[in-house]
């Protein structure tokens, strides 16, 4: 029995690590979309974060500075996107695609000399006795700090959107930018902040890949993680906690698939490794159809340009 060799606690631990980069990118994009902007450049910002984070972490040798650099790298690309879509009123879909294509190319160029290097290790957060609890300790309390901060970030975004005034303004801008503008809110300023936040999150997610999960840099190493994050936002119907559930579900699929590969199941690796993408599509289909139509929950002004006539 192949499943017999898989330890559920180890599986759970690996699942959280696999889910974290996508969850980071998804929670950022969720905020962006809540403000009414569709940024399809997540993949580009993620790879930018992966590359910048790696380069910066390797040079002075600190993963923490690396993560800061990754967030900055993601924000630079996001700022470019904001300039195009908010100031120059370009098509959001096309601009997002441009961001992804540009990011993939730029990082391939910047990261050239960094292939094959091992980054400095990010230490595991010492949780003392918690990590010694049988099963639970192994599964939940032996991670690096980013895993926990990501969960905290999900909570913070949920609280921000639901309970703070600024969060409510952001939702108003996303639901109906004409009305928000009429009430005197600065639609573009709100969106600029949201886009930058999304860029920082995507950058962090990318750095988590290059610094911790994969622990190495290769060209195009995000292999669609940014797109899966975009799908996750739809799957979550724009709700933060659901995004987390989705990311963990997805992480579970990835880890299970990797375990099956390692266990030597008689299915070629290529077929197993397409399963995360297929499952993402399947989930998108399930969530987009049926009675509980997720699209009904989409922000009203999503992907619509806003230009104040006066």
């Amino acid at each position, binding site marked *: 029995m192949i499943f017999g060799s898989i330890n559920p606690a180890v599986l759970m631990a690996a699942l959280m690590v696999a889910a974290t980069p996508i969850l980071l990118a998804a929670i950022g994009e969720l905020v962006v979309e809540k403000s009414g902007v569709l940024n399809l450049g997540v993949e580009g910002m993620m790879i930018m974060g992966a590359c910048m984070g790696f380069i910066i972490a390797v040079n002075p040798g600190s993963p923490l500075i690396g993560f800061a650099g990754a967030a900055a790298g993601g924000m630079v690309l996001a700022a470019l996107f904001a300039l*195009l879509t908010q100031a120059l009123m370009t098509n959001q879909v096309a601009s997002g695609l441009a961001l992804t294509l*540009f990011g993939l190319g730029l990082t*391939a*160029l910047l990261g050239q000399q960094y292939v094959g290097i091992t980054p400095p290790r990010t230490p595991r957060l010492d949780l003392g006795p918690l990590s010694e609890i049988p099963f639970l300790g192994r599964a939940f309390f032996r991670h690096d700090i980013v895993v926990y901060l990501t969960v905290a970030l999900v909570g913070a975004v949920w609280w921000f959107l639901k309970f703070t005034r600024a969060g409510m303004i952001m939702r108003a801008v996303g639901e109906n930018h004409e009305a928000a503008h009429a009430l005197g809110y600065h639609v573009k300023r709100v969106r600029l902040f949201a886009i930058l936040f999304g860029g920082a999150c995507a950058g962090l997610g990318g750095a988590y890949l290059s610094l911790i999960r994969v622990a190495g840099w290769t060209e195009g190493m995000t292999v*669609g993680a940014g797109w899966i994050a975009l799908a996750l936002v739809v799957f979550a119907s724009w709700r933060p906690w659901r995004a987390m559930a989705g990311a963990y579900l997805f992480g579970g699929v990835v880890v299970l698939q990797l375990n099956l590969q390692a266990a030597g199941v008689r299915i070629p690796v290529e077929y197993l490794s397409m399963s995360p993408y297929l499952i993402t599509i399947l989930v998108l*289909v399930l969530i987009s*159809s049926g009675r509980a139509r997720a699209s009904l929950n989409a922000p009203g002004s999503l992907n619509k340009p806003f230009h104040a006539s006066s």
Partner: protein
Amino acid sequence: MIRLEKRKEPSRIWRIANPFLAVALTMIAGGLMFAALGKDPLVAIRLIFFDPLFSETFASYSRPQLLIKAAPLILIGVGLAIGFKANIWNIGAEGQYIIGALFGAGVALAFFPAPGWYIFPLMILAGAFGGFLWAMIPAILKTRFNTNEILVSLLLVYVAERILAAMALGLMRNPDQPGFPGSRDLRRYEAAHNAELIANTGMHWGGVAAMIAVIFAYVMMTRHMLGFHVKLAGQAPRAARFGGVSPARLVVICLGISGALAGLAGMFEVSGPGGQVRIEFATGYGFTAIIVAFLGRLNPLGVVLAGLLLGLTYIGGELAQMILQIPGAAIQVFQGMLLFFLLALDFQTNYRIRLTRGAAA
């Protein structure tokens, strides 16, 4: 104070001038990038845009390469442009390109080593059908389940890449050389070889198909009701629906056309310049074609020019890599910048910049 004022009508002059301006700006920004890499920018730009066609030493080799690179870009770009016009975003052309190549190669390998005039036409049909089929997945999911076609078509690229690898290592592997991944070389199988039609021009059947596709697309977009529906759905979706244009039908048609054309491009590539089903077969034509479609202003004739230009950057990029040791990725950056500049410049098409004096305005 600077203010943007929306134009009543998009400016036609800027629409046509912007692609040229974007190319010029990209050359400047690209030159700066090359300078930052420690290369002489003027030499690099000359090497990329001029030498492949006109230099005495390289042109004999690289001139035919232009059509070889441009044909798939044009073929895919023309199809994408039609969809983009209707706001239907097929960004998974790379996947349809791969599946088309696999279908085409599959037919060829099934007939190997039989001779027969009918094999190549069958491969063409299979290639187009493969791409069509792969594009029908996002199309049907969109029309039946309202699933976002952007995400599905893109995610399917990764699935297609895995299928390609599985085929190269498994089912389609050359049985005579089991030690190597990859299929038989179709260039050595006469009935399936997409050979150069006129020596030293780079013109193969893919180029012919691209020309036919451009003509058809042009006629469809300017003279046929379907083209009108596409444009209407893109510019005024509500009006289109009241006018009896079925959005679902349009999704299927646009994704179907672009998928079939991408599949064709893949098939012509695998049976000609590519030669065999390999893991590294897909080199990103499907993504570059997105830039081609935009740079060509979503107009079939514009796509031809844009396809030739981006084809040129591929060859010039290889040349610059060989002679100046400029990394191959620099060309990707170059292509990305081109799209950025084009999108940014387009604000002039739709908006007018007004200078107003602070509060007095």
